[in-house]
């Protein structure tokens, strides 16, 4: 049988959730989680489209090696969502193309 969630399994008592925005939309984020983890929790699995084919991408390697999970945070493009931790009020934006407003 599976337990409820990884937080249950590790008996985590995170500090209170805060708000960040994704393309202007407010979402909740648990402190300590990376952008990728917060987006997963909000049911979002892709946050950029590729340069040539416009295909959606999200987490792939999860450890910062593949650069698939690139996202814009507080106007800084091409941040690896699986590495960057979130802070209250952070503005996450989905990216297209090179991430530099093509």
């Amino acid at each position, binding site marked *: *049988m*599976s*337990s*409820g*969630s*990884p*937080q*249950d*399994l*590790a*008996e*985590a*008592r*995170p*500090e209170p959730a805060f708000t960040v925005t994704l393309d202007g939309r407010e979402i909740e984020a*648990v*402190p*300590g*989680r*990376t952008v*990728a*983890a917060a987006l*997963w*929790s909000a049911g979002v*699995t*892709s946050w950029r489209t*590729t*340069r*040539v*084919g416009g*295909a*959606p*991408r*999200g*987490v*792939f*390697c*999860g*450890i*910062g*090696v*593949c*650069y*698939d999970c*690139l996202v814009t945070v507080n106007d*800084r493009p*091409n*941040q*690896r969502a*699986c*590495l*960057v*931790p979130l802070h209250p009020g952070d503005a996450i934006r989905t990216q297209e193309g090179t991430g530099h407003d093509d």
Partner: protein
Amino acid sequence: MTERPHLAVIGAGPAGLAATAAAAAHGVRVTLLDSAARAGGQFYRQPAAELNARRPQALHHRWRTWERLRDSLARHVEAGHATHLTDHHVWFVERRSDHFTVHALLGPAQEDPVEVRADAVLIATGGYEKVLPFPGWTLPGVLTAGGAQAMLKGSLAVPGRTAVVAGTGPLLLPVATGLAAAGVEVAALVESADPKAFLRRPRVLAAQPGKVAEGAQYAAQLLRHRVKLLTRHTVVEAHGDERLEAVTVAALDTGGRIRPGTERRFACDTLAVGHGMLPHTDLAETLGCRLEGLRVHVDDEQRTDVPGLWAAGETTGIGGADLALTEGHIAGRSAAARLTGAVPDPRGWATAAKSRTRLREFSAALDAVYAPPACWTDLVTDDTIVCRCEEVAGGAIREAVAGLGAGDVRTVKLLTRAGMGWCQGRMCGPAVAGLAGCELTPSRRPFARPVPLGVLAHAGETEDDEHQ
């Protein structure tokens, strides 16, 4: 009292931690640089502090070993013999006439530079997952087995609700059981290897009874979580529109080819896939270290052939956490002896050396068993994306080989852009080599991380100015 010699250890996974402890305990001052916020590397990845996890051991194996490593580091830091620099992403190690300079970027933004000088360097940069492409593998929801584990351990996050874990290798077992314990419905573990292959290597297994017991524990957990174990099977396609919705899995014959008519479909929103591991060798290669195949060559003291440079752990050959611990320990002992001018006495680490031999043999046996299916290139269609970063499809690679005469990975890269993107060929290298029918040779990556030109414009400048 003379000042201690200074060793920079790069990587705070099992190898780096063991090396730090050994060196600091034997007269060396250690600066441990690591890209993460907390020590542990991949194997001992810790949940972020703000998550206040009271039982992180629920997500881990060999927790007591971690506690020893963690506490040892804390003691040495407290005693002033070690410094742990977190969030330091090393992009270059410069060899100078009588010392090394380690160039890092402060994370997670990786815009601000830091330079650390040391008398010697120990590279323990670990490894990363190999994934061979198949149709649909670029759909969101498809991720590496290690990636699913990393997000679980580090962020206490799961990728979705229903998962299939697939590929080949010992990593698949803890990933499947870990996800299941964390509440994900794991429909199947799809392993392309033949479990009977283990039985052909009884001596090696007998030398590692702990590993055999571990395997049995996993089997029990899979049963408990109702995870279907399909050996000699492989994923042939991942399906979905904007994200993963299902996978098709098929059986393999003894020649490693798909058995027609055995296809089954599993609805899932997550596919955690991996086909083994590859060492990170960029820093060592740029410094001129000899590589053997894809790994950094070291001697019995874990020394590379560049004076003052040691290497330990996955970077010297994939072999798991236990092997990394023994290699790190030996490297730290050797570095301490050599740097303090003592003659190293291998009897001081004889146990570790014996362990290292056994674990390397075990790892070699695992490699032989956990080989990807022989037919994997057949699954790659001309439309299947092979280079994820530059979106180069199988057809373009085949055209470069057949039509333009490319016969090695670098030439395919030049003619198709496969390997020229952000990840610099780390993900697609094995696939390109397989499709080109050639060996995977290590790439030259002078920048282990992308570095802002503004930082590069001043890198090492102060030191050079001092010499003028």
